């Protein structure tokens, strides 16, 4: 698909052309929304809303930049809006989070030692505060490079790698807590 040609057709008033873009990207957008929200129903709603926002703001897309990251950023923002509205995200402040993860933990077990299965990792990712969940999904799910993430967020590459590092530390904590919770539940 010649993406820019399709976008140009949309901008020229051809609404049907946008349907081709939805068709092409719906799996990716739905997947991201599902990983962000953890709910199929919310993922479908928010993906729909993301495409609608993309349609209404298509004229703001820079044709020199790829369409996919632009669309995925809209989808991420829609997920964040929904999660904040529903209050389904950790309410720890940024300062508290930094304090939690700023102390190095040289003896902390690795993620491989803590993660029993893929679902445990997914649960732990869903439990991350939104800024950390976002960078983890951008890097490991969307496959964005540090440079692309830095361009999107306006942060430096150093800050992005710090976010990833801290997100991993938080994942370790969450996995440990999950293990403790499961162990208590089994008693």
């Amino acid at each position: 698909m010649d993406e820019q040609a399709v976008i140009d057709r949309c901008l020229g008033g051809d609404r049907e052309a946008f349907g081709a873009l939805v068709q092409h990207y719906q799996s990716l957008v739905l997947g991201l929304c599902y990983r962000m929200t953890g709910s199929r129903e919310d993922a479908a709603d928010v993906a729909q809303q993301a495409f609608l926002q993309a349609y209404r703001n298509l004229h703001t897309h820079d044709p020199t930049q790829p369409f996919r990251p632009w669309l995925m950023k809209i989808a991420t923002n829609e997920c964040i809006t929904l999660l904040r509205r529903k209050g389904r995200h950790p309410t720890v402040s940024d300062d508290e989070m930094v304090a939690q993860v700023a102390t190095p933990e040289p003896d902390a077990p690795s993620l491989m030692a803590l993660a029993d299965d893929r679902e445990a990792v997914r649960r732990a990712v869903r439990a991350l505060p939104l800024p950390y969940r976002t960078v983890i999904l951008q890097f490991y799910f969307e496959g964005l490079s540090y440079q692309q993430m830095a361009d999107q967020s306006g942060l430096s590459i150093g800050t992005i790698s710090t976010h990833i590092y801290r997100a991993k530390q938080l994942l370790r904590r969450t996995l440990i807590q999950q293990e403790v919770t499961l162990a208590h539940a089994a008693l």
Partner: protein
Amino acid sequence: MRHCEIEQLHQYLAGALAETERAEVEAHLTGCHACSMALAEIAAEDALLTDSLALDAAERVWIESIDLVEPVMALASPRFRLTPPVVLTSLLMLAGGYLAGSIWSAGSGLLGDLPDIGAIITLIPQFFRFFAWLSGGGLLLTLWPALLIAALSGLWHLTRTKETNAHA
């Protein structure tokens, strides 16, 4: 070179280091077992996260079963908005309906053999074209208020002229 920073190793694996720094890290890694082990652990964690967050078969089946095209396109359809062209066209059609009714009730031969509604319908194509030019899409959706006003105007004239004829 001192031991590598953890963030530096993350950036190294992600290919985000500048050429000089990358060369320095590589030179250090060849002689430092601790940093090599740390790098291997980060790489294994990256692989674990990538694998765990990828969509599995059941999730793919669910995603493939969803069609967002139709609902998105339905929501993206232009909706009625009271824009200046809509207001102007509605006023013009109201005036046209009033004029047609006046001509009919005055007994003029111009449109006298047509009922008011018919007279108004004859005006619609002109406004239809005018509207198409102005609105550039979603014509039927945006035209309905003008059609409604014209129809009501015609009905009002029809009722009024019937009353006038009855009095006569």
